């Protein structure tokens, strides 16, 4: 008995390989990847120059690309001819290869009626304020989120738009602006000025959450003022109660050096697992900084059958307790 497959019988044309720019290509490819996860037959034609992600990092030992393997899993090689229920690409690719698909999902930098200038994911994060708000306090440089979060988020939004358009029926073109999606994610910064008259920035007084070294890696120090008594109780150092520089959440944030002077040695003396267990026992929301290699052995992911033996993640939704199965195909 087959499991759930909401897009069973639907044919989706993935024009990611024909997008003129890389962020668009990544977003379109992610959108189509999710469609494959939902059971669509996804066809990914490639230009004469071949699969654009075939040599992109991260590279495996045989020189093939993990990016290609991930994004094109469950897709089929093929041509843009024939009937498709929906097509995904940039303006040029859709115009050239998908004139007849009733549903089109069009990725752009700024939106449907704007020019599509040269752009990168880092450039988009910069424009959307997402780059500027992430990182150690100023004057340290800002930090990009690892991987392809800007393009992938747009791909996720594009898939949601595509699913909605399919459900509505008839002809539709959904426009997904990479900038709009990134600014939408970053709404506290985007709306902060408009809503409250203040925009959060990466000032030392504001960056309350950060990572710090433990015995075997780093911990993410994430907590609210209400968690402080429990946090203090776990560490058990009287200075956390007596030092006036640590009396309030804003003071502890502004006086990070004084805080680290007290808690740093304790963290350095304990493993991530010990710290996580002690903090979680008191419902303090700290967590271990975990490397992808470690995720392969993660008890939670194992219990939920989330990662394949080759590291391939399942579509991140349990469906009446089942995982949706991806066809074994791979484009290219």
């Amino acid at each position, binding site marked *: 008995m087959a499991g759930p497959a909401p897009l069973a019988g639907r044919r989706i044309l993935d024009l990611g390989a024909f997008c003129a720019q890389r962020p668009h290509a990544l977003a379109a490819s992610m959108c189509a990847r999710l469609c494959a996860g939902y059971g669509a037959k996804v066809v990914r034609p490639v230009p004469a120059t071949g699969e654009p992600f075939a040599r992109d990092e991260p590279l495996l030992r045989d020189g093939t690309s993990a990016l290609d393997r991930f994004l094109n899993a469950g897709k089929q090689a093929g041509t843009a001819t024939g009937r498709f229920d929906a097509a995904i690409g940039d303006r040029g690719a859709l115009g050239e290869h998908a004139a007849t698909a009733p549903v089109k999902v069009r990725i752009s930098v700024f939106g449907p009626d704007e020019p599509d200038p040269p752009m990168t994911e880092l450039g988009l994060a910069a424009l959307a*304020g997402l780059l500027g*708000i992430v990182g150690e306090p100023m004057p340290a*440089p800002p*930090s990009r*989120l*690892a991987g392809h979060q800007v393009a992938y988020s747009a791909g996720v939004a594009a898939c949601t738009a595509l699913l909605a358009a399919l459900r509505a029926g008839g002809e539709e073109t959904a426009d997904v602006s990479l900038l709009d999606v990134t600014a939408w994610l970053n709404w506290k910064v985007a709306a902060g000025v408009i809503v409250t008259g203040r925009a959060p920035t990466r000032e030392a007084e504001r960056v309350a959450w950060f990572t710090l070294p433990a015995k075997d890696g780093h911990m993410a120090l*994430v907590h609210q003022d209400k968690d402080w008594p429990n946090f203090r109780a776990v560490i058990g150092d009287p200075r956390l109660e007596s030092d006036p520089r640590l009396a309030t959440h804003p003071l502890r944030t502004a006086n990070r050096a004084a805080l680290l002077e007290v808690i740093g040695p304790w963290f350095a003396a304990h493993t991530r697992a010990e710290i996580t267990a002690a903090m979680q026992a008191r419902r303090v929301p700290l967590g271990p900084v975990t490397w992808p290699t470690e995720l392969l052995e993660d008890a939670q992911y194992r219990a939920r059958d989330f990662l394949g033996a080759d590291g391939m993640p399942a579509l991140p*939704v349990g469906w009446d*307790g089942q995982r949706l199965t991806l066809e074994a195909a791979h484009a290219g």
Partner: protein
Amino acid sequence: MPGDLPLAGVRVVDLGWITAGAASSTLLLDMGADVVKVEGPGAPDSFRNWDGAEPGTDWWNRSPFFNFTNRGKRALCIDLKDPRGREAVLRLLDGADVLVENFRRGVMASFGLAPAMLRERFPRLVIASISSQGETGPDRDMVSFGSTLEATAGLAALTGAGEAPVITGRDVNYPDQVVCLFAAGAIIAALLERDRTGQGAHLDLSQRELTSFLLGEEIIAAAAGAPSPRRGNRDPAEPGERLERNGEAWRVTFPGGSAPVRDGVALAAAADFLRGTAVLRSPDGTPAKGIPFRFTHRALSVTDVCHPLGADNRAVMAEAGYTEQEIAALEAAGVLATVPRGG
């Protein structure tokens, strides 16, 4: 019908809080669904608490971020801990297509609304449970904020321009944001599946899993014995890209263009942002959470303001089959309310 929004006629009961649940429902609303936000008088959405709240006012109706996120939803304030409140929600669900919730695991069951029971009782209902870790597994009860999940999902280890891994912090909490885009899609997928099979579904959405999924290539590389290092701001596929500092300002340059690293003030004033859809306006002019895409044939827009707590109690209860007298009795008993307890 042509021109109808994609989710016209879909009825959503929204037990979503803060962002992950509440903004997923908002996205469904923007695509045409009718959304009833359900809060308890003893447990309103904690986004209603805000720094500028003034005692003696209806501060709970004035929270800028709450109103920003929940504009346009109908507002039901009912005590789920009271059996009469539970019964009312069950009657509401009888006519609903979708339930969205992101309570701590176990809270729905404590209300007598365990998803497994709801799934059985309402076989066409799509139940979306959004949580940190998922419904099952040894870590299901782990407490976290979005940034905790960035750490535990593998994102923080690979993020950071300096020596230490970096989390986004309370102003972003990336997993809380991106899950809304995915959850809304999964819910629509489940409605499509229901169209095919007649069956609803219980969707178990783990924000941690989504965050790892969005690093899929890195996990595959790690499994093949070729894990990536932390690359800081460098993208190996964009060798011509630079992040440069000029005094206080930073700028990204790349072949063919450049982009300023904006703060909120610069973003809010930027023409490209103002022409976009990330932040929109409610009909009363107040800022409203935007819509992350547009349709050519079906215009998406923010059509309604944020309703005060419990403003739609009577209408929603009447639709669920309650008589005037029954509604009045529930009001008198404090099961229905328009003011938070202690407010």
